């Protein structure tokens, strides 16, 4: 399985790993990108890249000819994605902490935000992977991208906005004002979104949020793995 996990890392050009931190810093500092959404877009890139390579070169046929079980192929991808989710969460936490300290970024992610971010990312992976293993088709890539757009709107208009509006109502008497004396407008496109992250989770899951949410995410991830093994084992890799 380690060999198969290594394969996905070999796929990505080493310059990607070298330039990525700088690109992230630039996006974060120059354009004020939200940590949460940056994390999601990096995840989508990391999640889809091996599948896109597989589809373009039809390598799943080649690997199915090698002495590895299909179950192991699925396992390796799930392990890689779990590792990816943990890495992204960690990097975002560090990036935010550095930016908060040195770049005058107002909001510092707290441990609650990190748990929520990790859980949301894991949910996203768990929902996407069975589809990718079932079809290995370009349509499933569109589906995965579509998912993130839908998530964006759900978060923006259904979850975050009411939370933030409620907060704004509470703060009406005492508005949130930045150092320049301007009222902070909450929006998904800027870093203020990150401050709504754990509030959204508390709204969705008011009871023991920071235990139930990650446990639910991990359970979904495990169930997703079994579903992927089930579908991939029965899939015809070549057709007419």
């Amino acid at each position, binding site marked *: 399985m380690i*060999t*198969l996990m*290594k*394969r996905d890392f*070999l*796929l990505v*050009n080493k310059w990607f790993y070298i330039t990525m931190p700088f690109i992230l810093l630039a996006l974060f500092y120059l354009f004020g990108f939200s940590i949460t959404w940056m994390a999601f877009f990096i995840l989508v890139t990391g999640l889809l890249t091996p599948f896109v*390579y597989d589809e*373009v*070169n*039809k*390598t*799943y*046929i*080649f690997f*199915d*000819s*090698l*002495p*590895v*079980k*299909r179950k192991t192929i699925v396992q390796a991808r799930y392990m890689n994605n779990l590792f990816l989710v943990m890495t992204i969460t960690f990097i975002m936490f560090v990036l935010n902490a550095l930016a908060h300290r040195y770049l005058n970024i107002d909001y510092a992610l707290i441990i609650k935000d990190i748990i929520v971010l990790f859980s949301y990312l894991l949910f996203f992976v768990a929902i996407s992977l069975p589809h990718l293993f079932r079809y290995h088709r370009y349509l499933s890539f569109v589906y995965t991208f579509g998912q993130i757009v839908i998530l964006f709107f759900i978060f923006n208009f259904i979850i975050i906005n009411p939370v933030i509006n409620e907060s704004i109502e509470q703060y009406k008497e005492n508005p949130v004002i930045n150092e320049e004396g301007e009222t902070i407008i909450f929006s998904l496109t800027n870093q203020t979104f990150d401050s709504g992250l754990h509030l959204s989770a508390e709204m969705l899951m008011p009871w023991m949020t920071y235990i139930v949410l990650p446990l639910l995410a991990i359970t979904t991830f495990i169930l997703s793995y079994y579903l992927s093994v089930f579908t991939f084992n*029965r899939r*015809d*890799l*070549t*057709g*007419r």
Partner: protein
Amino acid sequence: MNVILLDNITKKLGDFYFKQLFFSVKKGYVTGLVGPNGSGKTSLISLITGHIQPDHGQVTIFDHKPHDLYVKQNVGIVLDQLYMYDDFTIHKMHQVIAPLYEQWNEEKFNFYLNKFKLPTHKKIKTFSKGMKMKCSLLFALSHEPKLLILDEPTAGLDPIFRKELLYIIQDLMVREEQTVLFSTHITTDLDQIADYITILDKGAIKLEGDMNDLKENFHIVRGPKQMMDQDVHKLFVHVEHSPTGFTGLYQGDLALFENLDEKISFEQAKIEDILYYVIKANAKDVMP
């Protein structure tokens, strides 16, 4: 003993299907699988390799299921294309593939690497079709498989490498219990190396047998037009008519023709002839 056994296989793939198919490959021999384009050779190989699963019936290799690790450790597969990451080099591929095999033979790998003169640090996307095929062979042979499955390996290759490939297979057959399944539509490749032949058309096996028996029993017969009538016609697998005479594939003892006065000629049928006439026999044979 059969190394590969397809028992009563039914598989539907769009408009194409295999219906109650039986197919076997004997241990220690080269079996040639021939058929026109679209006859189902690649699909049959996909069933054997486990890339597709039968709707009904059972596929066994070395008495195991195709996905069993024992099978995969002992089978080398060369497909019609190299399905590897275009951006990988042989060096990178080696890093991924070699650790997966228990009997990976590094010496053998280097031997074939030198023999095929393949660059180890060039991306696969820069390889020609011939180089890609050599690369596929390199990885298929380096773990010394007991069963080698080749799907159209010579298609689109120059005659020199085609010949070279046939010599490699002949060399392999020196090893005891080495088995090869060779699918192709270039039948001349098989004249040289095959021990058994299976002709496939539209998902069904039309003919199978020992190469020597086929050579002994099948003849191309040419004769004058006036000799041909309904009774003579029935003797042939298939007959092609021309303004001056006929050419047909005859299966059986040639003694039957000995007492005929007409000028007729015989020659041993090649695989290509057998394939052509057997496939044509499916179509309606029209008398002039």
